[in-house]
């Protein structure tokens, strides 16, 4: 361990703790799945926390549509799932940053 002043070492350790917490939260969010449905309810999709499309479920009516209509349903459902994912991710990251703020970190460098 280099001979940095003790308050610098404490500051760096605290910052690393916060970064670990943020990283854990991002991992949890990435493991979650989010659902989106198009406005007609004919297409339902599931994406993972990184935005990867996991599944597309089309109802029976889809067989009477043409390709362009099916594509539009899927695009709408994916947009809905992405919006749900972004909303939840923002809420969870805000919760973490609020906890960090309340923990008393000033954001000032150690002296």
């Amino acid at each position, binding site marked *: 361990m280099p001979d940095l002043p003790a308050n610098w070492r404490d500051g760096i350790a605290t910052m690393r703790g916060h970064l670990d917490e943020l990283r854990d939260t991002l991992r949890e969010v990435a493991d979650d799945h989010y659902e989106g449905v198009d406005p007609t309810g004919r297409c339902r999709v599931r994406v993972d926390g990184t935005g990867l499309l996991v599944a597309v*479920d089309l109802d029976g009516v889809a067989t009477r549509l043409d390709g362009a209509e099916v594509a539009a349903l899927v695009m709408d459902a*994916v947009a809905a799932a992405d919006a749900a994912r972004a909303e939840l991710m923002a809420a969870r990251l805000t919760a973490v940053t609020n906890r960090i703020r309340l923990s008393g970190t000033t954001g000032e460098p150690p002296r």
Partner: protein
Amino acid sequence: MNETFHRLTELYPRVQREVLESRERRRELADDTIEVTSDEHTVTAVVSLDGRLRGLDVLPAAPRRLDPQTLGETIAATVREAQLRARQEAQLRAAPTPALAEYRRISRGLTS
């Protein structure tokens, strides 16, 4: 101050500059796209390098030729393949810069 601290101080302006450049490169990722077509040419997906689905083409007759489950699986697999390729390309373009990599290595060593 010791040598480690001096090195970190020396690296910091470069790290700041490289982080800004990397952020700019990431912004540019949204403009470039990857296109993937399914084996049977039923579905084509266009995904930007930031992973967003930008376009989807399904053959006009595909919904009548395939049952909904098979069509859904084909669409999901094609889009996912495009997203994974986009992710690989994005990682190549936004790899950690030399100064940032050294800065991280040194600062990890400070508290371990």
